C-alpha cells in the first residue's frame, strides 16, 4: 500500500541528491534511511532492571 505526500521543490532536490549519493533505488528508500538515522538510539532494553508483566500491569491503570 502506498500513499502520497507533498514536498517542496527544495526538499525534492535534497532527496534527489541523497538518492544519488546513497545509491538508493527510490525516494522511499532515501526517506527510510533518514528516518533510521534520526531515530537511531542506544538500546534501553532492561534499563530499569527487571520486572514481571504482572508487576508492570499492577497499578498501571486505575481500573486494574
Amino acid at each position, binding site marked *: 500500500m502506498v500513499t502520497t505526500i*507533498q514536498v517542496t521543490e527544495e526538499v*525534492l532536490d535534497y532527496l534527489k541528491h541523497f538518492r544519488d549519493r546513497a545509491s538508493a533505488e527510490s525516494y522511499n528508500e532515501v526517506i527510510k534511511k533518514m528516518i533510521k538515522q534520526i531515530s537511531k*538510539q542506544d538500546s*534501553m532494553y*532492561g534499563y530499569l532492571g*527487571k*520486572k514481571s508483566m504482572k508487576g*508492570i500491569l499492577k497499578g498501571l*491503570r486505575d481500573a486494574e
Partner: protein
Amino acid sequence: MKLKIPTKDKYLLDSSAWLAYFYGENKQVADYIESELILLSSSISLLEVKRKLKVDKISVERIAKVVQFMSQRSIVLDVTQEISEQASDISLENDLPVVDSIMYTTATVNKSILVTGDPHYKDIKNTVVIS
C-alpha cells in the same frame, strides 16, 4: 511535488509494551522497538509510564530519559475527538475499560496494530499480546 510512500507495518505500543522493554520483561517487544518499523504511541502512555515509574520510585533523571526515548522512537498521538467518540463504542462492544479502548481506538484510527502486554486484548483483532 508528490511522492509515493508505503504505509504498512505501523505498530502502536501501549504503556505495558513500553514498560516491558524498559524493565527487560520481554525480548519480543525489543524486536519491535529496535527495528526500522514505524512506531506510534498514545500521549496517554506518557502519562501512564511516567506515573508508574514515579510509583516505582525511579529517579527523575531516569524517568526523563525513558520519556525522551519514547518520544524520539515513536510518533506520539493525541487523543482526538474522533478517537474519543469511537472509543466509547469500542469500549462497550468489547467490554474494554476506558483507557484500554482509547489505546485500541488510537491504533485502529491510525491503521496500526496494537502491541500490548495486557491480556484484556487477547481476543481482539489487530492486536499483538506479548507474553
